[in-house]
């Protein structure tokens, strides 16, 4: 009954990368679900704060379609910095779907966030 299928066929594609950013081992995992992206950015090797980033497209007659992202902290520190980081990262990635982003960063300087974003881009 429980016949094993070919396990090399992956239903949900995922990619991962790791790098040394500002002296901290940083890991990225991106899972592409049909309805959303699941992105893990971690320097603690833990899930940490979970933020849901949804995409709302605002039709503006002057600028055309401007993507806007709203953030909602589902688990963890609900502080302005978390929202800022999540919005910065997702706006730069500009994915077609909404994103579930998990952040567990030791350093939250703009430079580090930029490097993390670049690392996520290699996994998209």
């Amino acid at each position, binding site marked *: 009954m429980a016949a094993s299928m070919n396990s090399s066929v*992956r239903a*949900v594609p995922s990619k991962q990368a790791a790098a040394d950013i500002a002296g901290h081992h*940083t890991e990225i*995992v991106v899972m592409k679900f049909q309805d959303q992206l699941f992105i893990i950015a971690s320097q603690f090797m833990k899930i940490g704060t979970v933020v849901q980033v949804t995409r709302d497209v605002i039709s503006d007659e002057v600028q055309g379609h401007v993507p806007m992202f709203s953030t909602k902290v589902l688990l963890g520190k609900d502080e302005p910095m978390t929202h800022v980081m999540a919005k910065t990262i997702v706006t730069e990635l500009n994915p077609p779907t909404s994103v*579930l982003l998990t952040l567990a960063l030791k350093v939250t300087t703009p430079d580090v966030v930029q490097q993390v974003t670049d690392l996520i881009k290699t996994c998209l």
Partner: protein
Amino acid sequence: MAASTETKIKILDFSENLLDKTVHFKLMTLDSSFFVWIGTNLQLTNMAVSMPPIFDNTPSTSTILGSKCEETSASLALKLAKKFKQQVFVSCTVPFDPQLSLLIEKRLMEELKKYIGS
């Protein structure tokens, strides 16, 4: 550009035919926590998190994404947190069927035992 190093987070994918349905599994093991996704459709519609118990025997569980009426993910997260004494994230999107749930749990335990030392 940051120099790339080896990844420590392990991801495991497998699919199983259970009761004429193809059920996909995705496991991700992190540092003293893990993530489980189980689905027949390839979506991430709900997620529950459970923390291992410290003082009493019941882990605390919360649904962080999706409908709170949907108990499958939450109950599975609770069971796993109790068993493995780790923080667990569970996303389970399979149609409700007690028999199917049982088979899924059995298969999942088999695989988790290999990867996570209890």
